[in-house]
């Protein structure tokens, strides 16, 4: 493959115009000691047909959610992606553009992002959203950064029922500024109401939590806010047709993994970091924000705004280092939410809730198998203890065409997630396979 369009004659003419005689001359001023004096040890190039064949071979070595019925969750979910989402998001003019630095040429991306921000505000009940971050866990890192800067405090408390990937990511990025997330006491599948000292910057609860349970977010957030800390919620955007919004629960800042909004599973990325906050924190928001304005003729238009927060202006004093974000995923989310509307969102939530409950009750009825927290109200996933090695059960299920997980080592359990996509028949067959896998 080669996409540089130069003919030999072009190369000659262009070199001559520069007063050069060979391509080597372009590098003649470089110190000789650093020049590579051999070919790269990378295979020779391929034609498009050869490349496609090789990529098909590699893809064929994987088993995807197309040939395994997907009951896996833990932060990435097999929701249905309607046909129009990528037909529209994939349009060249959006797909092959970059950050809208020249707004007159970028009204498409800018308006789509403005609509994305609006929808995120509508979903969360909070006042401001940015134009996207990388993924859920890195969005939480940014939220904690906002909270620490707003409160000028250091400590960060996280729920014991927060997805462990979020905790690990927070711990890694905390290494720079020097904080360490402290895990709050758990009460079964839920977070115990903490004592929040006046040195706490942020209190983080996931709702629905890592175990799928509807946690005690209201009470924990009340305690956090009474102590002057920022209440941060990790939420599921697709739960918000039926579950209370972050604003209703009392969150100051809400972050989410936006993969569920029309984005493919894609082995963990590219996903979408969603963040929304109350207006008190607007100037601490990371990343791009789009605002509405007018042009010189008074026509409505959109621009990147509040750029004085950002790295290209504020440099070492920026609110974040983010530059390239996940705009395309945010556009996909906007198309998807436009397709769903408020009624589709409610119906989708209703189906996840009912199907997860049906699957949980069916699995709990198997002998030797139990729900880890039978009393918990869950949304679309739950933890099940299979009564034998969970990894082995997962592997046997794969053998029978079902994907479940992740495995929870500490709880000796398996997470099972049920989206609107799963039919009663698939759930029944899964339960049957499960019975066989644990026998």
């Amino acid at each position, binding site marked *: 493959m080669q996409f540089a369009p130069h003919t030999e004659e*072009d190369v000659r003419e*262009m070199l001559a115009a*520069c007063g050069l005689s060979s391509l080597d001359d372009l590098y003649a001023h470089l110190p000789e000691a650093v020049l*590579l004096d051999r070919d790269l040890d990378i295979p020779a*190039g391929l034609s498009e047909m050869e490349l496609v064949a090789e990529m098909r071979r590699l893809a064929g070595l994987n088993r995807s959610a197309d040939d395994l019925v997907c009951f896996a969750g833990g932060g990435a979910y097999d929701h249905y992606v309607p046909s129009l989402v990528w037909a529209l998001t994939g349009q060249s003019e959006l*797909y092959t553009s970059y950050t809208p630095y020249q707004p007159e040429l970028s009204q498409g991306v800018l308006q789509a992002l403005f609509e994305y921000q609006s929808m995120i505000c509508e979903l969360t009940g909070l006042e401001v959203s940015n134009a996207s971050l990388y993924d859920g866990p*890195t969005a939480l890192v940014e939220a904690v950064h906002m909270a620490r800067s707003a409160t000028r405090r250091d400590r960060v408390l996280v729920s014991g029922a927060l997805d462990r990937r979020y905790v690990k990511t927070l711990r890694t990025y905390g290494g720079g500024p020097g904080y360490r997330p402290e895990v709050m006491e758990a009460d079964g599948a839920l977070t115990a109401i903490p004592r929040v000292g006046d040195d706490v910057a942020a209190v983080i609860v996931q709702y629905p939590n890592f175990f799928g349970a509807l946690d005690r977010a209201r009470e924990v957030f009340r305690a956090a806010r009474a102590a002057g800390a920022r209440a941060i919620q990790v939420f599921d955007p697709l739960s918000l047709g039926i579950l209370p919004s972050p604003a209703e629960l009392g969150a100051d800042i809400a972050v989410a993994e936006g993969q569920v909004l029309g984005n493919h599973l894609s082995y963990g990325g590219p996903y979408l970091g969603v963040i929304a906050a109350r207006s008190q924190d607007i100037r601490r928001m990371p990343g791009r924000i789009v605002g509405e304005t007018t042009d010189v003729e008074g026509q409505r238009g959109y621009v990147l705004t509040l750029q004085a927060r950002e790295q290209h202006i504020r440099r070492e004093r920026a609110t974040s*280092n983010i530059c390239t974000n*996940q705009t395309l995923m945010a556009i996909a989310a906007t198309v998807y939410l436009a397709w769903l509307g408020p009624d589709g969102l409610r119906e989708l939530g*209703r189906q996840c809730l009912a199907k997860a409950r049906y699957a949980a009750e069916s699995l709990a009825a198997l002998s030797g198998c139990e729900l880890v927290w039978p009393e918990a109200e869950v949304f679309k996933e739950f933890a099940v203890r299979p009564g034998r090695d969970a990894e082995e059960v997962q592997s046997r299920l794969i053998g029978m065409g079902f994907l479940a997980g992740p495995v929870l080592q500490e709880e000796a359990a398996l997470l099972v997630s049920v989206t609107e996509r799963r039919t009663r028949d698939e759930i029944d067959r899964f339960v049957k396979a499960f019975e066989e896998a644990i026998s």
Partner: protein
Amino acid sequence: MRDGAPVRAQGAAVGQRGLLERSKAGRRAWSLPELDVPEVELPEVHRRSTEPGLPRVAEVDVIRHFTRLAQMNYGIDTGFYPLGSCSMKYNPKVAETVAALPGFQRLHPHQPEETIQGALELLWRLERALCELTGMARVTFQPPAGAGGELTGLLVMRAYHTKSSGGPRGKVIIPDSSHGTNPASVTAAGYRVVQVPSDSRGLVDLGQLERLVDEDVAGLMLTNPNTLGLFEVEIQGIAAALHRVGALLYYDGANLNAIMGRVRPGDMGFDIVHMNTHKTFATPHGGGGPGAGPVAVNARLERFLPAPVVAFDEDGGRYSWDHDRPDSIGHVHGFHGNFGVLVRAFAYVFGHGRDGLREVGERAVLNANYLASKVKGSYPLAFEGPPMHEFVSTAKPLRKHGVRAMDVAKRLIDLGFHPSTVYFPLVVEEAMMVEPTETETKETLDAFAEALLRVANEAAEDPNLLHEAPVTTPVRRLDEAKAARELKLRWSGQHGDGGGADAESVRTAADHPTI
């Protein structure tokens, strides 16, 4: 009209309606199967009390709306996009075809290793190729973009110093011409920024650097070619100055495109390298992302990389994730990075192969040199040195006509081109940073040069033409000060007490860099 200029008027679509304005009670686009299991009631405390204000629209409304939005946008597929520092090259369609294979696109990130052998092989081979390209030992694929790569590299730097010299050290040096993400990442990694000035050639001032280097310096972040498009010819001296005090040299891969197959960061003395797949390896920029920012390090730093890394058991022919990394800095992404983007990068790297990649670099440098030679008479180069893959000119000579670089940019839009980056790097007055990339024809470059020269003449003869530009776009120049002052960030206009911006946030388009 030339290639590319968005069409201003297409009937009633001018003054594009918002999605919400298309909403009508009773309309719907969604469809879901009937619920086939018993309904579940939640207790009141777990029920939403108000409906989110999403639009109710028909599928055809959604289609028309987003199709119209695409028509109001300009991408590489539309036309020339010489946005300096962003490597806006053609994004091969075959990369999209292969990334959409269900065996990649429909993989769940929690799948056990035995079901993802193809994905792991892909990452392993991509890692080997990137190590060869950069002269490094190992790669992490977790960082989701360039800035994420920078922060990851700096956290590796911190871990290294903490382990090897008992503390992380306090400062990181960056050149005054650097991209804004560099200083922002330095702060996020818990370091203080120390800036080294450029000398009269536009290169790192080696004398100044030597004075700044001490035992509290953790490292230096550098692009090479640098942000002015010039090769740091004293790179060996720079590396020696840093290594002498035990500090590390960080390669910001923003400009790697220029040197593929010719020079390797590792051979220049760099210890840590991040790459931007959306630049060098042509993965689509997506209107602002996603990217991917793999970070490569040399052998003495590999134990600090984020965990897990890919492992290959040659005897069993089996790939796995190696989680046993006690010195790892941890996790910098929720899962394994932007895998879907990496599939496209793999297609690009292996599709091109060793000769193709070298040619990419050569043609990118050729295009920049050719274009510079055609326009530097009217837009002088900021520095004398021979450009690599991009060049920085200045529109300063046009100032006497009351014309600024942004005016030139806006006029170029009317002539059918996406403008270059302007007002960056910050060290050049009226900067115009032009990166044509290798995928442009001589004819396109000629046409762009002709447009630039025409604009220079217009600046003298009819500067109003420039001040009023653009006039061919869906909207004309937008009031950025108003956007920041009146803050309308969502369609309801309810943004609480968000009004009243501080003085600094109402700087206008005329002031800030377009990068």
